[in-house]
């Protein structure tokens, strides 16, 4: 069988099953069963498939995922998120589009303590969207701010998807987590700048609302009580990584347990909230990990079929410069982001992209950061922008999916601008990891 036929059968098979709403994990498993029969020696290949299923998710590099998710879920279910938003709300005054700015600042803080973009979007959507709409904010401005900062969660550590990408692509997880920090905060700043500019240009989009806020120094007290400890947890998680005192798994576990302990100290943790947080964590990390379990053998099947070498060899035959190659790969990721979820994108593209990255001497940490930004964009692009659906599920009645998708558009442009900036100035991604 030629590599082109094998590629069509394997990649085409996965895409066709995905399009027919077969769950992602089972689409990969079905193709792997066929691939094992054809390319991995039949019955022996099927036995290997089950062995790979075990080894794929008993990997130390993936262990941070549930812990990073747990941090966000505890914040969400204990109500600490609401208190942190309230604290930020008290200290940001006199800014055009104030509540939307509060959303972005609070979202940046959550991003620094939650590894789940969905959790961050759900927190902000359920707590802040009704408030902004009630105060007469333009729905597009309100929705857009939440979506934009929700997607930034993918860049700012702890990020479950960054761990997944690092693990599967063979990029240092610690370095990739650190590499997302500067671009993440830069994106937050861009979002705030855009909101302030729009609200200043057209005040009707965001009526002033800070007349009844407490004045004086007392308004900083809640920031100290409810936000400073969260920032401390983030600093601890990142600090022990940078200092080399703990592995990503260990720093994630310490961060997760610290969040639980913080919730206990705030007297916000009950048996029910702990149970809900843990079940939600099990569900979200289970969704991610079971897809990995289903898809791991896919890379192996592609390799044995000759499809990987064939396609990579053909692309290398074009003799593109490393920069042009990276741009082409980013274009593919942005296109796939329109239709496919982020985990599937990683699983489908990494087997082809990483050999190209290595053979062209591209810095894997820089490439991984660009990869994350491209996928962050995919969270916001219809028809399959995961955050569009996450926000819809917590929006008040009357907000349509179309409105949400339209609200995301300016921020899609901003993600592409960030992609361009990190492409042109690699130091934005590589400086912090170089300190390791």
């Amino acid at each position, binding site marked *: 069988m030629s590599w082109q036929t094998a590629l069509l059968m394997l990649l085409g098979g996965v895409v066709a099953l995905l*399009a027919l709403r077969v769950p992602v994990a089972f689409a990969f498993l079905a193709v792997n069963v066929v691939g094992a029969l054809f390319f991995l020696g039949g019955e022996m290949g099927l*036995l290997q498939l089950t062995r790979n*299923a*075990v080894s794929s998710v008993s990997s130390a590099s993936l262990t941070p995922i549930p812990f990073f998710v*747990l941090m966000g879920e505890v914040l969400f279910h204990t109500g600490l998120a609401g208190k942190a938003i309230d604290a930020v709300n008290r200290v940001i005054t006199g800014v055009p589009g104030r509540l939307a700015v509060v959303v972005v600042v609070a979202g940046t803080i959550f991003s620094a303590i939650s590894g789940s973009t969905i959790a961050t979007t759900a927190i902000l959507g359920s707590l802040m969207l009704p408030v902004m709409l009630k105060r007469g904010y333009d729905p597009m401005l309100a929705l857009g701010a939440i979506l934009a900062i929700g997607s930034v969660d993918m860049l700012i550590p702890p990020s479950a998807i960054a761990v997944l990408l690092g693990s599967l692509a063979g990029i240092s997880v610690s370095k990739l987590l650190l590499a997302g920090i500067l671009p993440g905060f830069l994106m937050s700043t861009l979002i705030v700048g855009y909101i302030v500019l729009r609200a200043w240009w057209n005040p009707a989009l965001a009526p002033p609302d800070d007349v009844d806020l407490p004045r004086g120094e007392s308004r900083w007290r809640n920031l100290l009580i409810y936000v400073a400890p969260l920032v401390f947890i983030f600093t601890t998680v990142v600090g022990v990584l940078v200092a080399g005192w703990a592995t990503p798994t260990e720093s994630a*576990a310490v961060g997760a347990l610290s969040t639980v302990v913080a919730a206990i100290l705030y007297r916000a943790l009950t048996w029910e909230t702990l149970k809900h947080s843990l079940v939600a964590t099990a569900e979200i990390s289970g969704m991610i*990990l079971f897809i990995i379990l289903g898809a791991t053998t896919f890379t192996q099947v592609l390799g044995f079929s000759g499809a990987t070498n064939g396609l990579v060899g053909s692309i290398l035959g074009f003799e593109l410069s490393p920069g042009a190659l990276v741009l082409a790969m980013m274009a593919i990721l942005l296109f796939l982001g329109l239709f496919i*979820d982020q985990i599937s994108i990683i699983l489908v593209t990494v087997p082809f992209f990483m050999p190209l990255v290595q053979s062209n001497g591209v810095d894997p940490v820089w490439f991984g950061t660009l990869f994350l930004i491209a996928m962050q964009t995919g969270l916001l692009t219809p028809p399959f922008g995961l955050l569009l659906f996450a926000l819809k599920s917590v929006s008040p009645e009357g907000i349509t999916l179309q409105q949400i998708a339209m609200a995301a558009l300016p921020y899609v442009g901003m993600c592409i601008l960030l992609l361009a900036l990190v492409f042109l100035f690699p130091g934005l991604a590589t400086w912090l990891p170089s300190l390791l």
Partner: protein
Amino acid sequence: MPRIVDATLEAINRWLVAATAALILGMAVVITTDVLGRNLFDRPVPWSAELSEYGLYLSAVLIAPWLLRRGQHISIGIIIDALPVRAAGPIVKAGDILCAAVSAILAWYALQATLRSHSDGSLIIKNVIFPEWYVFVPLTAVFALMTVEFLVQFVRGSLDDARGPG
């Protein structure tokens, strides 16, 4: 479908999700104890690495039937969503049968891996030593459970569950 099958599946899944949740909390506690013990008291927990690796595997596997039962496995379906319900229904049912078949095949080969490993006496030797076949048992059980679940969905009609992303 007899109510007893549904009730049994629900009860099993509730136990599995409780076990997964407890496992995640347990992993966080043990790893943190190891980090603190190692750095502050020179008393590490030597088996914490194995617990986190195999705990992660178990947490991925045990929750899978629960996710399936609640339609929470990520799916996309850009073609299905564009079709009228009458046309989409049979395709979704065909998907259920395909997934049931894949699950059954994997349950069978996971069982074969368990039996072979048991008869070979293979061991996993790290800080903790244990028979390798232990790790294949949950995989066999979970794929068998999901075979039944897909068949139940096929009988019940899974279109409603399958609608909507993620």
